[in-house]
């Protein structure tokens, strides 16, 4: 008698017709075999054994270097439930179009079945997902980014309580690339991309787009937020969650080496991208990081901007689309003042400035969270951490002060719903156009955003001790066009 999971895997194999099916257990032995497979495929390279042990460099197809929002769809039954901020196709139409693309897409390939848990393995707030994929790179990445393998199958047992995700590289052609979320079924289909949030279905697809739908249904919150702990001289740690649009420094903030460390104020890292939060018995919102790794932008990362990540990535990490030095070490723009000679760029060519940057601007590191020296002792706590503050922010050259506090929850929801970031202007001094990105969730909200604001308002009534809400702007400029707040003088804008 087969389980719901086995039945679903069989159904996907009937469509995609893989040469073989491999159930992943998440073990070290399997990870080594997957790495060997990746190297055999010719787009992945082992890095310096001594200085970067157990690290690999992966080069993606040059047309496949970033998430593609234009072909990402929220396929609710009714168009209005996807709302004005999402791309929508009717579920039946999406299944027909994508069904044709998935037809035989895994012929001659291995289908990997990747069961995973989002969140601490033992937490009641965590959820099980299963991705079937023909990409060994996805398997290797999911092992870092989630609790993958036997631990997930053990938690699932024979129940149907998992979020299924079907993924295939297809032919990697941008015209045949589609990512669809079938919300009422809590199902993800993704084809034609091997990259990051398009292919690691646990990340943006499940942890935000599907989870925000589930959270609204079930009375919790799934947000595009970092989680940090601020320790004060008394030793007490106060936890805060912050949402910023892309390129506003979430990873660097949650891992910062505090300028006040000598005075006893120290920052601890729980997560850098996504927070799942539920009201706890103490009346506070308790947050967990559903991920177990950091998938961060490499260019601009260095000892000054993020010494914790620089230490973390020295082992057991995957680098995607960065450059490689003659010593087989990773390199990217902003890592060091001097550019090493004899490098291969992200496309494997001998690097020359006329070919553009050595590392692709969206190139990444994928690193186990536990390796960051700043990782909080509570990062894997099944009870989550109690949140005392929400921080929202964006890049505003003139408008917003360094920091302000909302008057109450309702006002705070308005502040979050109206946050915006200016596009970086080509001319110094000119102010870019503000792009609205409510709660930094614009690309990730799994349903009508108006209804999402309603959910925030309702949650406020359910939390006995709600977080205070703040808004920050690290990017204000003076009349001379220079940043006023010193931190930004040492950050490279990406």
């Amino acid at each position: 008698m087969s389980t719901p999971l086995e039945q679903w895997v069989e159904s996907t194999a009937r469509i995609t017709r893989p040469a073989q099916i491999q159930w992943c257990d998440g073990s070290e032995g399997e990870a080594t075999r997957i790495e060997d497979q990746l190297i055999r495929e010719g787009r992945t390279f082992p890095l310096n054994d001594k200085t970067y042990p157990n690290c690999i460099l992966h080069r993606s197809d040059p047309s496949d270097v970033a998430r593609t929002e234009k072909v990402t769809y929220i396929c609710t039954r009714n168009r209005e439930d996807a709302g004005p901020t999402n791309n929508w196709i009717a579920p039946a139409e999406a299944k027909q179009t994508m069904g044709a693309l998935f037809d035989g897409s895994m012929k001659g390939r291995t289908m990997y079945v990747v069961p995973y848990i989002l969140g601490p393995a033992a937490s009641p707030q965590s959820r099980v997902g299963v991705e079937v994929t023909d990409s060994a790179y996805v398997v290797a990445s999911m092992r870092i980014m989630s609790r993958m393998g036997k631990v997930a199958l053990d938690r699932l047992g024979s129940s149907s309580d998992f979020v299924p995700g079907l993924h295939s590289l297809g032919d990697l052609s941008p015209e045949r690339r589609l990512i669809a979320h079938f919300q009422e079924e809590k199902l993800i289909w993704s084809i034609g991309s091997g990259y990051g949030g398009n292919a690691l279905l646990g990340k943006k697809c499940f942890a935000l787009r599907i989870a925000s739908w589930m959270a609204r249904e079930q009375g919790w919150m799934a947000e595009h937020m970092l989680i940090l702990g601020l320790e004060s001289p008394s030793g007490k740690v106060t936890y805060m969650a912050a949402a910023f649009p892309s390129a506003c420094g979430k990873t660097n903030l949650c891992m910062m080496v505090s300028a006040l460390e000598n005075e006893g104020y120290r920052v601890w890292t729980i997560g850098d991208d996504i927070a799942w939060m539920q009201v706890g018995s103490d009346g506070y919102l308790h947050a967990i990081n559903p991920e177990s790794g950091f998938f961060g932008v490499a260019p601009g990362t260095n000892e000054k901007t993020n010494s914790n990540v620089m230490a973390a990535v020295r082992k057991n990490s995957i680098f995607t689309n960065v450059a490689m030095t003659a010593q087989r070490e990773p390199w990217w723009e902003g890592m060091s003042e001097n550019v090493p000679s004899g490098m291969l760029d992200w496309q494997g060519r001998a690097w020359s400035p006329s070919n553009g940057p050595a590392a692709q601007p969206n190139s990444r590191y994928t690193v186990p969270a536990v390796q960051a020296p700043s990782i909080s002792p509570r990062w894997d706590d099944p009870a989550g951490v109690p949140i005392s503050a929400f921080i929202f922010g964006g890049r505003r050259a003139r408008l917003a002060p360094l920091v302000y506090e909302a008057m109450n929850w309702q006002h705070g929801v308005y502040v979050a719903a109206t946050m915006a970031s200016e596009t970086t202007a080509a001319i110094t001094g000119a102010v870019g156009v503000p792009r609205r990105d409510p709660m930094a969730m614009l690309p990730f909200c799994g349903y009508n955003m108006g209804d999402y604001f309603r959910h925030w308002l309702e949650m406020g009534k359910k939390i006995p001790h709600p977080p205070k809400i703040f808004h920050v702007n690290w990017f204000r400029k003076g009349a001379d066009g220079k940043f006023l707040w010193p931190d930004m003088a040492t950050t490279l804008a990406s």
Partner: protein
Amino acid sequence: MARYGDNARVLKWMLERIEGKAAATETPIGAVPTANAITLDGINVSRETMNELLRVEPADWAKEHADVGDFFKKFGDRLPEEIREEHNRLGERLQGIPVVRK
């Protein structure tokens, strides 16, 4: 030269607000730190720069308010009443009209 971790000074003010220990000045958009509330020891930021960083200019915010009004149009009647209410109240505060909270 200021180090990267100076944003911790802002987090410290937030912590003090949570604990009820820090002073703030009310503005039409919300509460900002008072002039001395953010620790500036060891950082190269003058009083003048801090004032500039904390300034709230109602004229700039009036422009923003109009832009936000435009943005809200796309949500139609799915925009919650309470959000509309906050938007209107902000508009009144920016015009210097005292708002009586229910």
